[in-house]
């Protein structure tokens, strides 16, 4: 199946990049990830931190009147890889409907060949963040 257009475009871009370009682009995404908006701060403070060793990823899904979702993240600057992966997902999926997000295949990123640039272990972060986004998307459908 096809991916939402924005996400497909990012996947195609990465597929044609050298290792260095991938790393630079990922850093660009990491730096572009917006801070968590003020209106989520209170709720964020109440959330349980994830156990040590993990990069703590906090995310919120916001539903617009037309049913589309926007994701907001809180990920520490010390974890640029996870920030970059989250920013790619936000850029690729913001504005999509929950049904579209749930339908994204867990291995959608395979053609990006990111394993050239970051270790397979860290790539799992992609699956983790996407799985987390899907859970939040399901909640908005309630």
């Amino acid at each position, binding site marked *: 199946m096809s991916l939402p257009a924005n996400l497909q475009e990012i996947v195609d871009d990465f597929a044609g990049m050298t290792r260095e370009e991938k*790393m*630079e682009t*990922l*850093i660009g995404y*990491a730096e572009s990830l917006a801070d968590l908006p003020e209106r989520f701060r209170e709720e964020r403070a109440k959330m349980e931190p*994830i*156990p*040590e*060793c*993990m*990069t703590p*990823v906090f995310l919120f899904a916001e539903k617009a009147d037309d049913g589309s979702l926007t994701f907001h993240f809180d990920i520490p600057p*010390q*974890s*640029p*890889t*996870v920030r*970059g992966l989250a920013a790619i997902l936000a850029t690729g999926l913001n504005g999509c409907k929950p049904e579209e997000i749930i339908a994204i295949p867990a291995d959608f990123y395979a053609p990006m060949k990111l394993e050239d640039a*970051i*270790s*397979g*272990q*860290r790539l*799992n*972060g992609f*699956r*983790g*963040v996407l*799985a987390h986004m899907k859970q939040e998307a399901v909640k908005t459908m309630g």
Partner: protein
Amino acid sequence: MSYAHPEYLVDTEWVAQHLEDPNVRIIESDEDSLLYLMGHIPGAVQVDWFSTLQHPLRRDFSTREQFEEICSTLGITNDTSIVFYGDKSNWFACYALWVFQYYGHTNVKIMNGGRIKWEQEKRALVKEVRAYTRTSYSAKEADKSIRAFRNDVFKQIEDKKPMVDVRSLKEYTGELLHMPNYPQEGATRGGHIPGAVSIPWSMAVNEADSAFKSVEELRALYEGKDIKADGEIIAYCRIGERSSLTWFVLKYLLGYEKVKNYDGSWTEWGNLVDAPIEK
């Protein structure tokens, strides 16, 4: 009281004073390897635990020849004094130091507090990657006294010798099979190696600045769980990185002589057919 081998530890100020010292090479080794590219200590080179130090095929770190090539490329001579630092309270810096020590490069140090402390002190970080003149490095015979394989662990259980599980408590009790979001670092069984005590690695560092706790605090922490100076100790975690930090603490900060890191760790033991497990 000071640490048992204070020469293995330097502070951020010492590093700041030695940025241009030709006899010193500063190496950044991170869990998140993008951090180095985004900014590192001036003159520092990168050794990534995965893309640099892992064997390209086997589950193992670099061979002696591969290690020699890494050092030669980074302009390291057999006399270079190496200072490691990194993110996550120096986990991977300790892992890299352990590998260097394994191949006989004993003039190694950790920058106490790592990246976190350096950043907190608002010290300079640069993007420029400095190239050093290639050297011809020759590694020594591997120091097997600091590395445990699974057969050593079986023997350790049989002999009822001490082991330290440095993972989080939930991993030790078997409640968590793998870190959430890291499924490929998982194991098919949860729990811990029989006889191992739980002393999470993070208890050895101060939360505020990632620096190691005082020698008195460390001694109380480990001796309180019967991990003592005269013991033959094996430390393990999930893939051998967090336990490198504990290995470093026991060996150089507390001066325990016989400490091994089991880098197969839980991803090996928890998948090993016929291996005993406790929960």
